C-alpha cells in the first residue's frame, strides 16, 4: 500500500506554491527586520529568505517533513556556531569568557539553563546565571518568553525546530548509511531524566549552573572559561570529550541523536510540554503493519513496540517527522489532539508545519543571515 501521507505524486506545484504564500509573506516580515548591517546584508537576507521558503515549498510539494527539515536544521546549526563564535570574537576578541564578562553578567543565556533554574525560580524567583533579564545579547527574559510560546504551540518539537544545537547531532546521525551500533540498551533512555534531576538539584544546592559549568558538550563550539587554572583545563577536556562522543562519534555509529535523546536535561524536561501542545505523532492501528520501521528509525528512540501498539509516540517525541516520512502505509502521522484518526492527515501535518517552520525560520534566520554575511565579508 502507498504511503497515504506521502503520496508519491505529492501535491501539485500550483497548490504547493499557494500553500507556501503565507510562509513567503510571514518570513519576509520576520526576516527583513533582522537583516545584518553592511553591504553583504541584502545578499544574506535574500539567500536566507529563498533557502527557507524553497525548503518549505519542497515540504509541501513532496509531502515530506523530516527529509528537508533535517538538512536545513544541520546547516542552520553549523551557521549558528559560525555566527556565535564570530560575535564573541568581535565583542571580546576571544571565545573564552573573561572575569569582566562574568562580573558584568554578559554571558548569553541558553534554553538548557532552564533545567537548573526551576527550583530557584520556584523558591525565590531568582536565576542563578550571570546573564541579563532584559536587553543585551541573548537575554534571559527573551528566552523565557520564546520558550513558553513555543512549548504551548509545539511542545518538545523545540528539539527539532528550535534548539540551535540540535541540528549538529541530528546531522551527524544521518551521515552513515548503516548504524555500526544498531541497538542501544533501552534503559539508557532514562539517562536524560537522571541528568535533569542531578543538574537541577546540584545547581540549587551550589547556586550556580552545574551543567553549563561542568558537562555541557556545546561549550566546545560556543564559549568557554579562560584556561588559566587546572579546574578550567579539566572542564575543557570534559566539554570537548562529551562533544566528540555525544554529538559526533556516537550519532555517526548509532544513527541516533545521542546528545538529545540520551543526555540532554532540557530534552527530558521539555518532553512534559508535549502534553499541552495541540499536535502530536500517532500511529493509526488500522493501517499499521507492525513493520517497526518507525521504531528502528526514530532518532531519539522515542518510539518502541509498546508505543506503536498503543497508537502514540512516547513523551520524548521531538516531532521531527521522520517516522511520518518513512511509514510505508501512512499509519504514522501528525495528529491534532481530540480529532478522529479518520480525518485527513495532510491538513493536520500542515497545521503543525506552519507554526513549527515559522518559528524555525524566524528564530534561526537571524543567525543564518548573520553567518552568511560574515562569511561573504571574510571571502571577499
Amino acid at each position, binding site marked *: 500500500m502507498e504511503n497515504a501521507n506521502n503520496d508519491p505524486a505529492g501535491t501539485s506545484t500550483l497548490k504547493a506554491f499557494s500553500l507556501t504564500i503565507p510562509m513567503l509573506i510571514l518570513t519576509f516580515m520576520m526576516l527583513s527586520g533582522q537583516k545584518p548591517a553592511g553591504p553583504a546584508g541584502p545578499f544574506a537576507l535574500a539567500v536566507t529568505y529563498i533557502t527557507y521558503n524553497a525548503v518549505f515549498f519542497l515540504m509541501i510539494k513532496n509531502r515530506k517533513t523530516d527529509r528537508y527539515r533535517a538538512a536545513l536544521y544541520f546547516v542552520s546549526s553549523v551557521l549558528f556556531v559560525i555566527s556565535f563564535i564570530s560575535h564573541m570574537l568581535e565583542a571580546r576578541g576571544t571565545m573564552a569568557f573573561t572575569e569582566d564578562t562574568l*562580573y558584568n553578567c554578559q554571558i548569553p543565556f541558553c534554553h538548557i539553563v532552564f533545567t537548573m533554574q526551576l527550583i530557584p525560580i520556584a523558591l525565590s524567583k531568582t536565576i542563578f546565571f550571570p546573564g541579563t533579564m532584559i536587553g543585551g545579547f541573548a537575554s534571559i527574559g527573551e528566552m523565557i518568553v*520564546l520558550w513558553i510560546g513555543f512549548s504551548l504551540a509545539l511542545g518538545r518539537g523545540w528539539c527539532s525546530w528550535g534548539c540551535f544545537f540540535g541540528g549538529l547531532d541530528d546531522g551527524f546521525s544521518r551521515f552513515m548509511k548503516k548504524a555500526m551500533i544498531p541497538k542501544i540498551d533501552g534503559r539508557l533512555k532514562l539517562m536524560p531524566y537522571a541528568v535533569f534531576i542531578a543538574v537541577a538539584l546540584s545547581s540549587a544546592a551550589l*547556586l550556580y549552573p552545574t551543567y553549563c559549568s561542568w558537562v555541557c558538550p556545546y561549550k566546545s563550539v560556543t564559549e568557554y572559561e579562560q584556561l588559566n587554572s587546572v579546574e578550567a583545563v579539566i572542564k575543557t577536556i570534559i566539554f570537548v570529550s562529551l562533544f566528540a562522543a555525544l554529538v559526533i562519534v556516537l550519532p555517526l555509529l548509532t544513527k541516533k541523536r545521542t546528545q538529545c535523546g540520551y543526555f540532554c536535561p532540557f530534552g527530558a524536561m521539555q518532553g512534559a510540554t508535549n502534553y499541552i501542545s495541540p499536535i502530536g505523532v500517532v500511529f493509526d492501528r488500522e493501517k499499521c503493519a507492525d513493520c517497526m520501521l518507525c521504531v528502528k528509525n526514530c532518532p531519539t528512540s522515542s518510539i518502541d513496540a509498546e508505543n506503536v501498539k498503543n497508537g502514540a509516540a512516547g513523551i520524548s517525541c521531538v516531532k521531527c517527522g521522520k517516522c511520518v516520512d518513512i511509514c510505508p502505509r501512512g499509519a504514522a502521522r501528525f495528529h491534532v489532539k481530540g480529532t*478522529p484518526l479518520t480525518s485527513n492527515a495532510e491538513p493536520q501535518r500542515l*497545521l503543525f508545519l506552519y507554526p513549527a517552520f515559522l518559528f524555525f525560520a524566524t528564530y534561526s534566520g537571524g543567525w543564518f543571515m548573520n553567518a552568511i554575511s560574515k562569511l561573504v565579508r571574510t571571502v571577499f
Partner: protein
Amino acid sequence: MNKIKSALGYLWAVAAIILIPVMFIGLEKFTKSMVEASGIKVSTIFTGGEVLKAYDKNGYKVTVQKAVFPALVGESPTGFTQVSFLADKRESIAGIDENIDYDGDGKNDYNVKIDVKKPEATITPLDESVAGLYKLFTLNKGWGVRVLVKKKS
C-alpha cells in the same frame, strides 16, 4: 462530545499558528511585561548587588555595592560586598589603597590594597563584620574585589 473535542483541538492548533508570529512581533514588550510581572531577577551572587555609592578618586571611579547574602531561600548568614575601581584603561591604575564604607553608615569598614603588578589584594578589616578577601578579579577597565562579610546583628 467528540465534535466538541475535535473543534477544541483544531482551535488550539490554529491558535498555535497565530501565537508564533505574535510572540516574535511583540517579543520586546512581552519580555518586559513578563520580567516585571514575575519579579524574576538574576541572583546577587552574579550581579554583586545594588550600588550603594560611586565616586571619583585618584583617577579612577570607585563603585561600592551593598552587602549581599545569597542563598537558595532567604539569606545566608555570611555574604560579600563588592567594590570596583574603573579607569579609562586598566593599565592606567598603578595601585589601589582605599578605605571603604560598605554599609553607608559613615564609618570605614575595611581597607583594600591591590598590588596590580602581582596581582594581589589585601583586605584589612576595620569593622568586625568584615571577614576578609573573597576574590580579586580583573575587569576590562580596572579591578574589582569581593570582600566576605558577616551579617550585622
